[in-house]
């Protein structure tokens, strides 16, 4: 692939507007109840809220006390208790429940059933999008994945549609929309409907192309261990709402430090997309540079010193602080990751992706389970095995499942049921015949019915077809070739050169072809549901800004891959996701051990 980087990558729209909109709306809602008030906040909402309006702002609008409330489903019930307690105590207060991002009919039903409906007023805070960074927008809906894909609850579809509409109304209309997946299609339709209801605004668009993708189109990518710096930080320390808490082992002091991770952090922004093996070298070079910058002081006269202190020192100090943090983080990373077992884990993953030495992989996984190395990692490997191999042989499936249950308890029977429902972990059965039948039928009847039939079949047996997809899209580079991680040549670098994320490859291909033509085989293997719609014509720089919406979450590795792709193609990608995810979050959402 040619290495002509585009020098004039387009600038990104200013997303801080979205924050301001959300804040203004919140303030408006708070002002609706004049006077002193107590604010109860759902714990899940704390971090996003903090990014929008900090305590000072809340206090300015007469919020007296803040309470954090855990456990979502009980929220309304707790509220009921509060109201009733006040009633008994003869206290008079006014109550308001603010639902975000939207109010559901069921909430009102519950309030009604509890008999407090008349005591409260309800409102909506349409806080759809939280900008996490210059190019990452999050809906902060981690529950989207489980609700939509496992429970079949489509309540968030309209939320996603509304988010798109919000983006469109603030940043101009889209010229072309591509997508793949059932949910993507529904979101697109919901958004269209909202647009028809509302007034049309014709202003110069700031991004013209939109790509919607369902998480279940590509489960492989989020199941792989992340090896780019940002992804690794997320896997190890868990980035929450754009900030991470580094423990004592990183800070080399006795307390934890909370750090915002975004492009404002000059050190981080340079290493976030790098393969972790490069990071340490980079950081030490950086440290040397920093030292040189400090060393400039020597031999300065007073005037120069004054200028140095005024202009540079603060920046250097800041950089120094960040540098030492990231060095600490990567040290602790290296400690964990260069160990023998991590290397073996990666090796197993790569073998699975390549479809190579599967027996050994199964033995490795078995041992992994037996030794109780990690509940989630074992599950992750099992799923990876199942997807890449189109399901497990009956014998293996049963033995591995039995061993897993012995290790982690019988309640995981339900976890396995969930995984099977999503097609993440399956037993091979008469599945092969289905594919054959399907393709035969496909030749006989027209396309539309094929789509329907495919739907029907896919509900019977969700086939991953990973091997075939990987071959057709060249996701796994030929083994044996050296891959220089310092100079990545394609998106595979985010997985040490072993695998190009399927989701990102799809985006690349579709943008290149300006549609799905020529990819019929691929989409058929992905259960169809693809679409490409031209909404309007536009011929501006906006053409080179592409909005990618992940429904069900996306990983930092995918974001890094897209950033790389953007650099290659001279365009910028903006990622809109229902939440940032990784293998642990993905699988934890599917656990069913609500003990």
């Amino acid at each position, binding site marked *: 692939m040619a290495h002509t980087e585009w020098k004039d990558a387009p600038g990104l729209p200013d997303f801080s507007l979205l924050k301001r909109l959300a804040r203004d709306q919140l303030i408006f809602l708070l002002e609706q109840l004049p006077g002193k008030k107590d604010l109860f906040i759902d714990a899940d909402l704390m971090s996003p809220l903090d990014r929008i309006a900090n305590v000072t702002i809340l206090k300015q609008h007469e919020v007296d006390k803040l309470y954090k409330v855990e456990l979502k489903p009980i929220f309304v019930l707790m509220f009921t208790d509060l109201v009733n307690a006040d009633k008994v105590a003869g206290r008079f207060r006014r109550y308001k429940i603010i639902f975000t991002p939207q109010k559901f*009919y*069921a909430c009102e039903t519950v309030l009604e059933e509890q008999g407090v409906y008349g005591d409260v007023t309800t409102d909506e805070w349409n806080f759809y999008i939280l900008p996490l960074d210059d190019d990452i927008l999050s809906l902060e809906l981690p529950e989207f994945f489980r609700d939509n894909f496992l429970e079949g609850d489509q309540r968030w579809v*309209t939320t996603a549609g509304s988010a798109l509409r919000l983006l469109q109304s603030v940043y101009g209309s889209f010229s072309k929309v591509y997508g793949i997946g059932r949910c993507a299609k529904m979101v697109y339709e919901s958004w269209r409907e909202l647009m028809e209801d509302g007034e049309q605004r014709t202003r110069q668009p700031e991004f013209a192309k939109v790509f919607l993708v369902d998480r279940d189109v590509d489960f492989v990518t989020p199941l792989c261990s992340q090896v780019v710096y940002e992804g690794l930080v997320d896997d190890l320390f868990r980035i929450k709402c754009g900030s991470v808490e580094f423990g004592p082992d990183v800070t080399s002091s006795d307390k934890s430090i909370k750090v915002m991770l975004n492009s404002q952090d000059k050190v981080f922004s340079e290493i976030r997309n790098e393969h972790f093996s490069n990071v340490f070298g980079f950081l030490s070079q950086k440290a040397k540079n920093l030292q040189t910058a400090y060393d400039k002081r020597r031999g300065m006269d007073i005037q120069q010193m004054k200028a140095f202190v005024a202009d540079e020192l603060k920046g250097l100090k800041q950089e120094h602080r960040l540098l030492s943090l990231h060095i600490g983080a990567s040290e602790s990373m290296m400690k964990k990751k260069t160990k023998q077992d991590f290397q073996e884990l990666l090796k197993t993953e790569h073998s699975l992706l390549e479809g190579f030495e599967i027996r050994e992989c199964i033995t490795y996984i078995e041992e992994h389970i037996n*030794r109780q190395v990690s509940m989630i990692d074992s599950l992750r490997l099992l799923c990876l095995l199942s997807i890449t191999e189109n399901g497990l042989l009956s014998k293996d499936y049963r033995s591995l499942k039995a061993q897993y249950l*012995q290790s982690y308890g019988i309640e995981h029977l339900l976890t396995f049921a969930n995984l099977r429902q999503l097609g993440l972990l399956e037993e091979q059965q008469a599945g092969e015949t289905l594919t054959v039948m399907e393709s035969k039928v496909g030749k006989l009847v027209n396309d539309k019915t094929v789509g329907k039939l495919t739907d029907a079949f896919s509900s019977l047996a969700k086939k991953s077809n990973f091997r075939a997809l990987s071959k057709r899209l060249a996701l796994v580079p030929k083994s044996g070739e050296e891959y220089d991680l310092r100079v990545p040549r394609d998106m595979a670098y985010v997985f040490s050169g072993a695998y190009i994320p399927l989701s990102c490859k799809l985006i690349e291909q579709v943008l290149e072809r300006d549609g799905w033509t020529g990819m019929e085989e691929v989409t058929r293997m992905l259960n169809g549901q693809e679409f490409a719609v031209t909404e309007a014509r536009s011929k501006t720089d906006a053409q080179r800004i592409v909005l990618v919406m992940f429904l069900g979450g996306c990983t930092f590795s995918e974001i890094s891959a897209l950033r790389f792709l953007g650099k290659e193609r001279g365009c910028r990608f903006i990622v809109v996701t229902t939440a940032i995810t990784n293998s642990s979050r993905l699988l934890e959402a599917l656990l069913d051990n609500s003990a």
Partner: protein
Amino acid sequence: AHLDLKKIELYEMGWNLKDGLRECLVAAAPYGGPIALLKGHYRRSPSARPQLEIYSSSGLPLASFPWKSGVVKQLGWTVSDDLLCVQEDGTVLVYDLWGGFKRHFSMGNEVSQSQVLETKIFHSPYGTGVAILTGALRFTLATNIDDIKLRRLPEVPGLQEAPSCWAVLTQDRQSKVLVANGSQLFILDNTACTPVTPPGLSPQASSIVHMCVSFSYKYLALLTDSGHVWMGTSNLKEKLSEVDTKIKTPPKQMAWCRRPKSQQPSAVVMWDGLLIVVGECKETIQYHLDDDSVLVPELDGVRIISGTHHELLQEVPGACEEIFKIASMAPGALLLEAHKEYEKESQKADEYLREIKEQSLLSEAVRQCVEAAGHEHEPETQKTLLRAASFGKCFLSNFPPEQFVSMCRDLRVLNAVRDYTVGIPLTHTQFKQMTVQVLIDRLVYRKLYPLAIEVCRYLKTPEYQGVSRVLKHWACYKVQQKEESDEVIAKAVSVKLADAAGISYSEIATKAYESGRTELAIKLLEFEPRSGEQVPLLLKMKKSPLALSKAIESGDTDLVYTVVMYLKNELNRGDFFMMLRNQPVALSLYKQFCKHQEQDTLKDLFNQDDDHEELGNFYVKASYKDQRLEARVALLQSAVDEYYKAKNDFSAKTTEDEMRLLRFQRKLEEEKDEQLVGFSLQDTMTTLLSVGLHKHAEQLYKDFRVPDKRFWWLKLKALAEKEDWEELEKFGKTKKSPIGYLPFVEVCIKHHNKYEAKKYVSKVTPEQKVKAHLAVGDMEGAAEAAIERRNESEISTVLSRCSATTDHLLMERLNRAKATAVKK
């Protein structure tokens, strides 16, 4: 200051009344509205029922029916052209323009007990109000009949019999009553009864016999028994004039006849056969009336309706007077003259024009002509004036065309609605006050749909407020036509409404349903593009399956929830479940709801579907929510049964194992006092081994067919943790290790016991030898093994671990071996 009046004939009445308006109760709505007559209501014999008739302003019949209710005291119209009939007992019946009964309301118990003496219906910015004087000589008042709040006004002091006259005023955002008791005048508001005196009222009067308030409530006219008319502001702060009519008999009716912004007060007083207009000067203008008549006060004049004619009496507007006054030299008059000459192709045209232009009054002239045209009733006169204006405009370069254009449009619309067949005699002033919107509403109310649409199109009203709205009303009316079949109506509606924007088919369908045509309603709903809109009506019509599928189609989860919850309450459980069964989206939503709210329902749902797999899962889940062991085991047993039914032997067996495990854990807990219940098999064994209960661990290993490898790993880890090296060695010798001996080496090293580790190095398989040697730090051994195996990569591994200073010799050896290995 003298008063110029003109009386023009609006219509020759189309009705045929035998006795004219004699003995009729009459009410005519302002703004050229309909006329209601109640004939023969004075004859109180039960045999002859009075007849209620409704006509247009031109006397075309709209409705007629015998009056079957109680004695009517007063008729009146609301602002939205509904007819109010106030009965003696205080009940007010509301009819629409077509005589259809709409509703009724009461003016309160007090009124019904003491009966209605007199009633006045009045209009204010708050809607239409009703004021009643009861037999007990008290006033009860409702300001807005659409939002009735009855107010009983304070007592009038010294009132022994019905007051000589009274009127309703709207002042300070409040409705008040002005009452005359002889010569005394009182204002009644919510709280008080205040005596007032009109400034400068002639002292010779001993009683006020009649009063009237202007259309705008700004002015008041009082007629005294001495025949004087006092006119002033209604706040009684200013007197405008006082005129002697020289007639001392009480009049039949009195009304203001004044234009907005006019400088002169003028009121009309009517006696039998005589009409007198009083103004500022002493002279009065008199008209003879041939017939019994009724005065209808309007914004800018008075309409006079008799048995045969309908006339409008109004002050001559300024612009018209300027132009048409004899020998007028006003610019407008000159322009009209100039245009006349121009038509005759006479050069005088130029002279007139020049005269205007010299005074630079041409634009004023055009303006006058346009304005005057607006006030003229005759299309011919309108045209003449507009032509003159257009002619004048040609000589002006910068004259803004809007006024002229909109006047042409307005007049065209006005002429159309003034037409005899339509019968809405609006003046231009009234039209401007009432707005196009309201005019269209009235046309729609009169079912003049084509005309309404034409007006909308002609005035370019936005489609949403104009044509679409009319079409919707038309459709709502159409669906009530009983004689046509559902298909015909549905087709007609869809054809007509096809390309109109913003039509709500669900509203039309609701109308159809309300008139008892469910099938038609469903047909119409099919045209509704937004499926969300269809749902509420479908539910109302009890078409729940359809409602459910429409809700699902809309993709709005909330709507689906609404329907599901509704159905849950509406249907019996079996039917409800059956319906959900056919709608997977709704079913999964409901399951979601049940998971949080109603666990038992969830079970029933699975039961109904014979979904044994899910039932099994359900019981498993329930089992670990229960704290008591017995309950847990019982629940697991249910799960086992279900799994067998589902032919899921694997899950069944596993669950059985779990039950066994639980019992085992319980037993041991009791015996050994060790926390075990709820642990996984592995954790149980780990715990047992860590506290030295090897036998029990062994038993589990056998009972649960734990793979050898697992058990070895476990035991290895547990023993190393306890640093029980002796036991470990024994264990290692029991039989050949299924996991090899490398783990032994590694586990010892992990616990920093190199000595023990070395014991196992020799047992390690050849493939792992190098690793083992390296683990214990035996470079020589590692090198030896690697060289022996002639494995290049292993040699490299060892090499990488060698240090150049101490292992110099070794490295040389290795390098040599490596070279040979590569060669091979």
